[in-house]
């Protein structure tokens, strides 16, 4: 059996084969494990492959469901999970030395929900340390490579999940998005990535980077699968106070296909400015023209505080991070170094050795922003800008239903290309940060290729309007009918 036969499959297609007895979860798993064995030494998408546990679970599911032909929504489906989501008994490192050896004694809410829906955790994926980065080069365990070009980055911070899904090492994955960490790597790897409305998916068990921004989202090959995953993981959770008290998302919320032409699309002019790679603008503009031909209305809108969103983000997110990461002190779990010279020595050495340079940079930035005497000028000002950014979106959505923009102003760049300048790296997220700051949902969908590299289109909706988001994303996907990725990955392609 070759996995390539399944390259255009959605979860429903696997279930159809399961129901006909032509495929079983354990056979499917074995196929993915084989693929991982073949390509992951080159890609390095996984930090941990959950082989034994996953196979055992697959066999148990098969036994329990023997003779049945309808399944829970994710029954028997392997899911790759970003390594900042706690998995009971499975190492969870956040791509950091400081959490090396940490095995959570509990499951994140999303993992509980995945497993209740029959999913199988196939492994934990690589990421920028504590989700801080845009290229997965900040992983303490080495970078992940882009399946379309092994010399290029897969984006980040959920680069491992994106590469795994694009290279078909897993059919679907979970990532987390703080300022673009689901959407930007999804775009770099030519797949679908959803950042839900803040509060729509429980953060319980997601290792915090910036609590007021972090959201878990599905990373999939098709919009259809993103919808299925989102239905499973979304909804109120008693264990997360910031989780909205609403029921899970239902595909019933998606407006019917025939209403698609009533959707008015806003094009924020700030997102099509000089800073954007013109080849990218060209691809997206072509798609927009087609949408117009299909009868959708396009209007120009403005999000005037876009330019300040990035700066404000780099105050607010590091501030929260500096506090969230204080718990890694060598006392209770993870790495411990030093201590011979007392408590201070243990703190200094553990944190000096345990954290990488980008994490340290952000802890310093955040600590500074929150310090007395600077709080008003930095953190408070950052929060005020955040309010202005949110208002931008409210005003834009008064004139249109959805916004369409590029996901990132740049194509997947070469490894090492941007590591020397943090600011250059931060710019890769300039179009994903504002909607994150506003707490509104957005999705990245592939809308074409240029020079063999995928181009991502971002669709942004108002709060809790994921239904409309999915409607347009699915429409674009069907209209373009691009082949789903199954890149050939071999050492000869790595120059």
């Amino acid at each position: 059996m070759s996995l390539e036969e399944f390259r255009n499959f959605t979860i429903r297609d696997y279930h159809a084969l399961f129901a006909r007895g032509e495929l079983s979860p354990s056979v499917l798993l074995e196929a993915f494990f084989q693929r991982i064995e073949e390509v992951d030494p080159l890609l390095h998408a996984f930090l941990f492959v959950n082989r034994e546990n996953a196979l055992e679970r697959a066999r148990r599911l098969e036994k329990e469901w023997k003779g049945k032909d309808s399944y829970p929504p994710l029954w028997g489906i392997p899911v790759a999970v970003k390594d900042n989501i706690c998995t009971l008994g499975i190492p969870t490192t956040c791509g950091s030395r400081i959490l090396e050896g940490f095995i959570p004694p509990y499951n994140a809410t999303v993992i509980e929900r995945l497993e209740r829906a029959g999913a199988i955790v196939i492994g934990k994926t690589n990421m920028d340390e504590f989700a801080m980065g845009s290229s997965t080069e900040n992983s303490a365990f080495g970078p992940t490579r882009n399946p379309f070009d092994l010399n290029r980055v897969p984006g980040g911070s959920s680069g491992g999940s994106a590469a795994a899904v694009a290279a078909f090492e897993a059919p679907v994955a979970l990532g987390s998005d703080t300022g673009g960490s689901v959407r930007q790597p999804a775009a770099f790897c030519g797949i679908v990535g959803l950042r839900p409305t803040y509060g729509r998916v429980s953060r319980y068990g997601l290792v915090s980077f910036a609590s007021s921004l972090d959201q878990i989202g599905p990373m999939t090959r098709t919009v259809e699968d993103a919808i299925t995953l989102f239905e499973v993981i979304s909804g109120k959770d008693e264990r997360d106070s910031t989780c909205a008290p609403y029921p899970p998302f239902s595909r019933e919320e998606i407006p019917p296909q025939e209403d698609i032409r009533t959707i008015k699309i806003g094009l924020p002019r700030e997102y099509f400015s000089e800073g954007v790679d013109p080849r990218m603008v060209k691809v997206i503009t072509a798609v927009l023209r087609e949408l117009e031909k299909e009868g959708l209305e396009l209007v120009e809108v403005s999000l005037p505080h876009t330019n300040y969103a990035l700066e404000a983000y780099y105050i607010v997110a590091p501030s929260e991070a500096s506090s969230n990461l204080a718990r890694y002190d060598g006392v209770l779990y993870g790495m411990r170094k030093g201590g011979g010279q007392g408590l201070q020595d243990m703190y200094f050495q553990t944190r000096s050795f345990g954290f990488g340079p980008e994490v340290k940079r952000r802890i310093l930035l955040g600590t500074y922003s929150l310090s007395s005497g600077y709080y008003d000028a930095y953190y408070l000002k950052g929060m005020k800008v955040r309010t202005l950014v949110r208002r931008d979106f409210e005003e834009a959505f008064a004139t249109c239903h959805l916004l369409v923009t590029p996901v990132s102003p740049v194509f997947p760049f070469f490894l090492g290309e941007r590591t020397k300048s943090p600011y250059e790296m931060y710019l890769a997220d300039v179009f994903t940060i504002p909607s994150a700051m506003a707490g509104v949902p957005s999705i990245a969908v592939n809308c074409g290729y240029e020079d063999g590299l995928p181009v991502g289109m971002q669709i942004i909706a108002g709060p809790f309007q994921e239904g409309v988001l999915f409607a347009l994303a699915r429409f674009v996907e069907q209209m373009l009918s691009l082949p789903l990725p199954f890149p050939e990955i071999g050492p000869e392609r790595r120059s």
Partner: protein
Amino acid sequence: MENVYVTIGLEVHCQLLTRAKMFCRCSTDYIGKTPNTLVCPVCMGLPGALPVLNRKALELAIKTALALQCEILPEVVFHRKNYFYPDLPKGYQISQYDFPIGVRGVLEFALQGVKKRVRIRRVHVEEDAGKLVHEGPDLRGAVSGVDFNRAGIPLVEIVTEPDLRSPEEAKECLVMLRSIVRYLGVSDGNMEEGSLRCDANVSVSLSPEIPGTKVEIKNMNSFRSVFRALSYEVERQTELLRAGKTPVQETRHWDEARQVTVPSRGKEEAEDYRYFPDPDLLPFRILPEMLQEIRATIPELPLQKKERFMREYELPEPEAYILAQDRDLAEFFEACVREFPSPRAVCNFILTEVLKNLNSLNIGIRESKVTPSMLAELLKMVERKEIGISLAKGIFEEMFRTGMSARDVMLKKGISFLTSERDLEKVVREVIEKNPQSVADYLRGKEKALHFLIGQVMRVTKGQASPEVVKNLLLRELSGGE
């Protein structure tokens, strides 16, 4: 000798009596439990765990603020107080900052009958930290462990304005504060077990115009140590000032063993806690209905009770004050008075004998074996002059020790026969018969002879009769019967 101007402010933490911790569902019943058995990912601060507010903790803190006549802010905001310490699992404490639960309250108490009033600056709610356990040759230990059973237990913090003028006032204020939290049922206010903790700011000046230097005193683990530490500190600062020196602004620890305050080890500069609103918790709106509901659960407070006791039972103020301080004792008093409506007698007996016995075991009235009815029965016997007060004291001690009723104690000790009036009459007649000389002396007008006869009766009865009753019986017999 010139005047000394003392300024003291208190910062008091009370553990709130909730069943579950402040942000998780772990039990708060940690005393005597094996370390780290009442923990979960949330109170251990594991990666990914998130806090969810226990509404009960908030309600108890609001109740405290209301009882202290605070203005209640319409929105509760939790802030993170960031600092590193091994007993702090998240590297920050969830506390409150610029939007505490209550502000601008008042606490009234009395010192030697003089009314005092201290302003309350703020009341807020926060989570407790874990506890370091040191094992090894010295206090710092060779091995240090952390017990997180206590981590996450809700605390209410009460900060007074620096309105207290002496260590005595500070101690009385603290006693009243404890009394109030116990009345409210929000905390058991036990300093020895650490469910009530007190830090103090002390400054001394030789002139009312010049403010002194603020020195913070920590590690006072009993009311007595609060008084002693503050007295020591006032004296220390006074001596420095008189020698022309200025006290250093610092934090000092009370060393209970040496009975001195010593500078705390640590940084000289003020710590920057980098407070910011906790993004894991949403602001909590306090609706007027919620306030009303909580207000309705506030019982009569100590000072109100004291006033009522003075009015209703005509108790003198000092006695009423002491009774009202202890809700259980006050309730015991009232229950007793219902059966034996002689409030003064009941009050006096409680404030002397009952307290003496309670204090000797260091327990509260709730834990004693004597019920209000049992005490009423005993006092009735005294009133009927069946027994004297000194005998009653002895009987009470036995009741207190064994839980037996007064009658049972008397039966067991063989007291009842000797002391009932009829038995006494017999003894009195015998004494009169055996001492004709003294009887003659008395009848000739020698008062002293009567005392001798009383003494003789008391000797025969082994001191267990009421001298009053004996005297009356003697007088009756000597005057020739009815």
